[in-house]
Each structure stands twice: as C-alpha cells, then as structure tokens.
C-alpha cells in the first residue's frame, strides 16, 4: 500500500535531479510509446522526447518541488503522480511555476513513464 507513494517520491527525486544535471540521461525513463507533453508540444517516442528535452532553450535549470501526490492507478501497479513546483532557468530571477503529471507503468521490476505532462501555471 505504501510502496507506490515511496516509488513516486523516489521517481520524482530522480527525475528532477537528472533533468537538472543532464536531461539526455532521462532517456531510460521512456519507451517508444511514451508521450511527453511539454506545454503544448506533444512528442512520442524515446528519441524524439530526448531531442525535445535537450533542445529546450535554456542551459541551467533547477526544479523545486512544492507538492507531490500519487495514487495507484490500476491493480497491476501503474501509478499516477502529480507534482507542483517552480523552476529557475539560466539567469532568470523569477521562478516559473508549473504542474507536472506522470503516468508510471511497471515493467520488469522497474517503471517507465507512459505520460509526462508539463504545464506552466503562473507567469512570473
């Protein structure tokens, strides 16, 4: 029962650490039918997703998570994760606030990201 919460928490920590350090390393989290929606660009497939993430027009980025919640989404173990937080890019002083929802699917003892939906919710 508690497992999914811990998994969600570990996932979120790993995801943002990796995103902030080296976005291209996120490739292992996606599969070819995974879908990333970053604002309104919707991209399917590992290589396209990584290409999108690495081509985002900023160099430095730091995520700060404000809230994190998760629910088991089906009996075979998929997990719905919802995060709200703020990110600071490059020299920008004002954080941009966002929400991000992940649909995590179990796969051979691990999880991959089926859906990753990122949205800014407040313009600084």
């Amino acid at each position, binding site marked *: 029962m508690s497992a999914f919460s811990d998994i969600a928490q570990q996932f979120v920590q790993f995801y943002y650490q990796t995103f902030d350090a080296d976005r291209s390393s996120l490739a292992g989290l996606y599969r070819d039918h995974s879908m990333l929606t970053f604002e309104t660009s919707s991209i399917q497939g590992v290589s396209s997703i990584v290409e999108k993430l690495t081509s985002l027009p900023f160099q430095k980025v730091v995520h700060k998570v404000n809230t994190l919640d998760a629910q088991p989404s089906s009996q075979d173990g998929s997990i719905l994760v*919802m995060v709200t937080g703020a990110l600071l890019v490059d020299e920008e002083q004002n954080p941009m606030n966002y929400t991000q929802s992940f649909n995590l699917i179990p796969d051979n003892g691990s999880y991959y990201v089926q859906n990753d939906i990122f949205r800014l919710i407040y313009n600084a």
Partner: protein
Amino acid sequence: MLQLNGFNFAGKILEIEKYDEAGIDQAMLPVNGSTPTAADTKAKMTAFLAKRFNRENKLLDLSDLHNDPDLIAMGIFQSTSTESKFFPALMKVWELNLSLVFDSPAARRRAVESVSLRANKLENLKMVTTLAQAFPDLKNLDLSHNDFKDAQSLLAWRHKFENLELLDLSNTPFSADPTFKDTMLKWYLKLRVLNGIEVRTAEELAALKKSPIPVQAPYFRDEGCIAENFIRAFFSGYDNDRNGLLDSVYDNESTFTLNINTAAPRAQQADVAAWDAYIKNSRNLLRITHLTARMSRSHNGADKIRKLWNSLPATRHPDIAAHPQDWLIECYPIPGLVDPTGQSPTGVGGLLITVHGKYDEIGKGSKIDTRSFDRTFVLGPGGGAGGVRVINDILCCRAYGGNEAWAPETEEAAQPAAQQATPQQQSIDQAAVPQQVVGPPATPEGYGMPAPGKSETQVQQEQLVIQVMSQTGMTLQYSELAISGNGWDLDKALQDFAKLKEQGTLPPEAFLAGTV
C-alpha cells in the same frame, strides 16, 4: 499643467504633524544660519512634492531642481552638505505622505509610473540612489540633460527598475558611447523606448516574456467527446450536487486525494484566505511522511470520498462555455488499464485529463474567495454516466494565480483591462509614453508607435510631438506646429512655447481640455 495644490485626494487631507520626525531631523541640518524645525522642513518638502507631482499622469517631476525658487529659498543648494541630504530626505517625506493616502503597498507603488530627473547636473547616482527604493516599479525614467559619462556612473541602478519601459538619457555623454544601447537593453529587460527611439517591439517583448517556453493551444485528444462531456458534467456536479456526481461516476475503486500548494504565487490583488478546511486532508507526500497519515489522507471508494467532499467548502467554477479563457483542459488517451469486466486480459484504454482553472469558494456569510486549482483525472470505461468511471482524481488547490500562463498571446492585451479594479490602474502597456493615457484620447491610436508603412523618422517625430504635448499641455496639432516649426528640436520648441505663453498669444484651443 495638472499639478495638485496639495496631497488632498482620495478623501484624505494630509496632516504633516503626524510624521515621525526623527529621519528628517537627521537628514536636514540647520540651513543658512537659521534653524528651521523638522516640521517646517517637511512642510516645505511636502508642498514642493505636491507642486511637482502630476497625479493624473502619475508623474513626479524632479527636473531642474537647482532652479526651483522654493528649493533655493530653503537654501538647499548653498552647501554640499545640505544638498547631499536633500534628496534622501525628500524621498522619505514622499513615502510618509504616500503611506497616509494609500493603504496598500501595491497602491502606493502604482501611484507613480514616471519620474523625471532631467537637467540636474548629475554625474552619478550617489545623490539620488534612494529613488530606486521609493519607486521600484517605475515604468518611465527621464535622466536626460545630465552628466553621466559611462555605464559605471549608472551602475547603482543596474538591478533596479525591473519594469522600466522608457528611459531617456539623451544629452548625456554616456548616450554617445557605442555600447550605450546594448548595455541599457541588457540591464532593462522590459525597455521599449530609449532616448525617444523604440528599441524593442511589442512582439520582441512578448517573445522575451514567454521564453523560454512557448505557449500554444492545449492538447485535447478525445474520441466521441467522452472527456468533454465528463468535464462539463463534473464541474457542474461538483458545484451543485457532489453526492449525485459521486453516484454517477465514482465507485468503490475510485481514489481521491487533495493537496494544498501554499508556495504557489498569487496574482497581485489577491489575498489568500486560510486553508483550514483543506489542510488536515492535504496529502503532500513531501510533508506527510508517515504511512498511517498517508493512508488516512487517501480517500478510497465513493463513500469515503463523499465524506470528505461534504466537509469541503461549497464551490462555484466558471462556466466553461462562457469563460473558456479561465480554463486549461487537456486530455490524453492511455493504454493498459485493468478491465473491470475482466474481459480483456491486456487491459482497456482510458483517458488522462489535466485541468487548470479557478473557482470561487462560497463560505459562510457573503465572503467569496477565489482560488486556483490543478486537477488530474484518470478515467476508465465503466458503468457510470457517459460510460466512464473515475479511477484517479488528484486535486491541488493554491492561491489565485490568474490565467496568464496559458492565455493565448493575442488575448493578453485585453487581460489587464478586464482585471482593473480602479481607474488609477489604467494600463499604459500600449502607450509609448505615460502621458498618452490621460483623459480623452489626445492622440489617435497608434500615434508614436511603429506601424507598417510608417518610417522610423515619422515614429520619432510623433514621439517628439507627444513629448511637447506632455510638457506644454497643448493639443496634438499645436504641439506638432511648435516642434516642426523649430526643426524638430525639443528644447527650442519648449523655449518658444514658454515665450509665447508668457506673451499670452496662444489661443485657448491650443490647449488640451482640463490643462489650463
């Protein structure tokens, strides 16, 4: 022009005796052998500020201070000691006055959009640096006809005035420096007009503002309007009949959790009401780390969800059809959900829906609090209304933050106007100079702004005309005559105007209504 006789507005008359006098005492030493009292000095400064403050234009004109007869009479410029203390003291008096007139810090900040420090023989900002604390949100700043030699001499204001749109440093040695324009563009990211010349277009500013992440239309892939029908029914049901909604699309396998994002920023005007009704159920896994608390804050099955929902405040969400701009709704098909009928071993398809919007909380009494929310659903096929059931429902509530983040860019210009609470807040976003917002339209729309087919020279000339209008109070036609007749030399035009006005040869119709 429209100068006030005193700070007698907003229904309050200032009483200078109320001020804390310590700061002024220290600031202004005995002048010219006599010992004016602090109250006396403040009274004179207040009168001076009232004379120099143009409330309608939100302009504080601190130009040419050395030639002001009142300041000369006060002996301000007789010693460098009094001179150096004068400006900080003046700023202090300004803030004291203002705090008596406007209750909220936001209103105080909006009271002045433009400051002129023109022609003050300034070589650096040492004397006037406190201006940046008094007016952090300044949009227009005139520093022209001063002696700033280089970027170094302005360095104290490098990280100030984040919202500066118009900066005039013409007739300073620095403005002839080849790095001048680039430096100013780098320092002031919202700068549009530098020395009377447009340096960023509205499009460039919008692009800067939106970068690095562009906003486009929402993603909505929904077969047979399943998600659309669900969303419409959901928020109407949540507002009006939560029990009925639970009966129709929630079942014993449904899960609902909520969390409060207290760190989210709020739109400027919003006070955040307390979260009492929510907080004991807030399931933020970053904060709620104990297993039992995590479990008790996860509401599984329609009955437990019902119990929680009936304890949460009543709500009113804006109508989706009538107010689409308040909503951002996206929908994604997802594979592999467990088939509740057990007929499909590989699972069935579902929908992942994300919703961002706002709602009014209808509490006790007449008080209505507006909040923003983010909500994520997973729907699967089921026996509920519309053939769906809610599998997951995660709600995040936060302070009202507006809808600007997802508003289509074309609608942005309309946004601030819609949110105006008072006439004082009239936006000058579209005006090249602040004077354009005053009273009846004194200039045609787009005047002084670049447009297709308009040459840069013409734009500059129109902006000069606007400057003449603002400084003389004359109509567009007369201002244009005045400046074109003087070879587009602003100084000559103003001298000419002063002469003609003294002679009384200007007809009343030369002036804009309400300025004489």
